[in-house]
């Protein structure tokens, strides 16, 4: 299929350009570890049960629980930051005339986006695997299937957010406008999703507000998986929300790329 061919052409080009930059490779690999090292130790000191999840009174407190709570949060945070910032690169590509050059060829215009999103998703999966492996080194204990379920969530989040990031960046066409836009979206999302601390600590009104963040549901579902619970409404909500985010964002993103004048 030509769309797949085109996507792979763009993917290979973008991947090659990324790997050519050694700083980028180092940052991609070190970033997840930094989060784990610099914030993880704070959580292991919390009393048992604070972090929700397995609230069985006789579960051992400390490290394992902390990382079962924290690693899913970090995975989503990685997804949020990793994929929402990708748009910056397309602004310079646009300015360099690269986007226009591609659009005058018979290549699928959607592939200009999908090839990049594929690269970003793959990068994120690699980062997630690094994060989980290092997490195990730190004392994370979780079922293997939970890790795969989490990677599934990460992929959905990355596909959706990266698409929207590219589409938004290509619409505003200015780093100066794009950066504050990102900040005003990401900071509330991170705070309201219960990435760093459980939302159960929040007062009622804040918990209510947090319900608007789609990532809240996804993180809860991932934490359920890490606790070994796969079939309940929390998981169902998480899957539906993640699919919804991916589909809606992909749709919005593609519209920008296939419309005649971008």
């Amino acid at each position, binding site marked *: 299929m030509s769309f797949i061919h085109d996507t792979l052409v763009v993917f290979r080009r973008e991947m090659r*350009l990324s790997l*050519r930059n050694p700083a980028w490779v180092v940052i991609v690999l070190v970033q997840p570890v930094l989060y784990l090292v610099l914030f993880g130790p704070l959580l292991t000191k919390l009393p048992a049960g604070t972090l929700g999840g397995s609230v069985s009174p006789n579960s051992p407190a400390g490290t394992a629980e902390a990382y079962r709570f924290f690693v899913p949060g970090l995975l989503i945070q990685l997804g949020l930051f990793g994929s929402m910032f990708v748009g910056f690169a397309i602004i310079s*590509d646009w300015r360099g005339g690269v986007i*226009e*050059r591609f659009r*005058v060829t*018979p*290549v699928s215009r959607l592939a200009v986006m999908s090839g990049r999103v594929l690269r970003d998703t793959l990068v994120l999966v690699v980062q997630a695997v690094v994060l989980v492996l290092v997490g195990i080194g730190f004392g994370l204990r979780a079922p293997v299937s939970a890790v795969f379920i989490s990677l599934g969530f990460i992929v959905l989040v990355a596909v959706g957010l990266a698409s929207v990031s590219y589409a938004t960046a290509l619409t505003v066409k200015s780093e100066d406008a794009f950066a504050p836009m990102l900040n005003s979206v990401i900071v509330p999302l991170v705070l309201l999703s219960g990435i760093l601390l459980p939302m159960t600590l929040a007062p009622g009104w804040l918990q209510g507000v947090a319900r608007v963040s789609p990532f809240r549901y996804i993180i809860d579902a991932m934490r359920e998986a890490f606790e070994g619970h796969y079939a309940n409404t929390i998981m169902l909500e998480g899957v539906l929300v993640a699919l919804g985010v991916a589909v809606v964002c992909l749709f919005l993103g593609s519209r920008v790329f296939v419309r*005649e004048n971008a």
Partner: protein
Amino acid sequence: MPIIEAKGLARTFTSRKRTVHAVRGVDLTVEPGEIVGFLGPNGAGKTTTLRMLTTLLQPTAGTAIVAGADLRRNPLEVRRRIGYVPQAIGQTMGGTDPECLVSEELLDQAALYRIPKADAAARAEVLIRQLDLGGLDKRLVKTLSGGQRRRLEIALGLVHEPPLVFLDEPTTGLDPQSRSNLWEHIRGLRADLGTTVFLTTHYLDEADALCDRVFIIDNGVTVASGTPDELKRQVSGDVVTLAVNGAADKARDLLARQPIVGDVAISDDGGLRLNVVNGAEALPSLLRVLDDAGITLHSINLSRPTLDDVFLTMTGRSLRDDSPSAGPAPQPGPAQPEPQSAGKE
């Protein structure tokens, strides 16, 4: 059959409830194998027209057949058949990534046209040779000189051997040597491959030196077209300047009686300045008339109007002025050609 045939191509932009008619009605006919120049001041609608013809922008009115495909009904087929080299300055650059190798750019471009890998490698090799990029294929694009990079950008537009290539301001920003070098390559495209070239330019000397035919666009409408010579002849003919040894008045009366001569004036330095329709053909008979009357000539100079004069006549402003207000008021009659600005003849 023309390779480009556009009728009434128009594009309006609407922003904040204000409608801007960027292009009001462009008619173009380009035959296969021509090198055609598209001239106009900034904001005349050159780039908008080019973007429409290359499927980057949908026309709001009009029709066009580009390389045998209908622009509005089958833009994908147009894209398969044309090459496009974006301008290398201004809002967007020429389309190459500074971090790519030259060979990667060529192979990626070929992949975008779904050219099989082996063919693509062979094609890249040919282009590297044709555009003097030998030895640069493993260099990063950012290490190329301005002229080399521009040649690479042109090579990218030719990867799929299109019968028609659009060059947007191909030599803008290049030094004079690179410019004339690039002109050679553009001529070579037609000579070696029979490629039709449609280029926009700011430079009148470029249009003059390179193009078989020129379209002039102003205010979103094509106001004139023809070979550079035809256009110049439309303006007011050529100017012949004579310096005679004495007897200037006698010479003036004599020449004024010649049917091929328009106005005759004696300039401040005592020379004669006459307008003729076709200077090159008129000179011999003018010389004979003077010779028969025993008037000896000191010097003679024939100058033809430049495309800038054409431009001034057609649009009321000089192409060199970017802002319309900087130019002179529109002139109803033909402009006077300036002899000193036309030294190339």
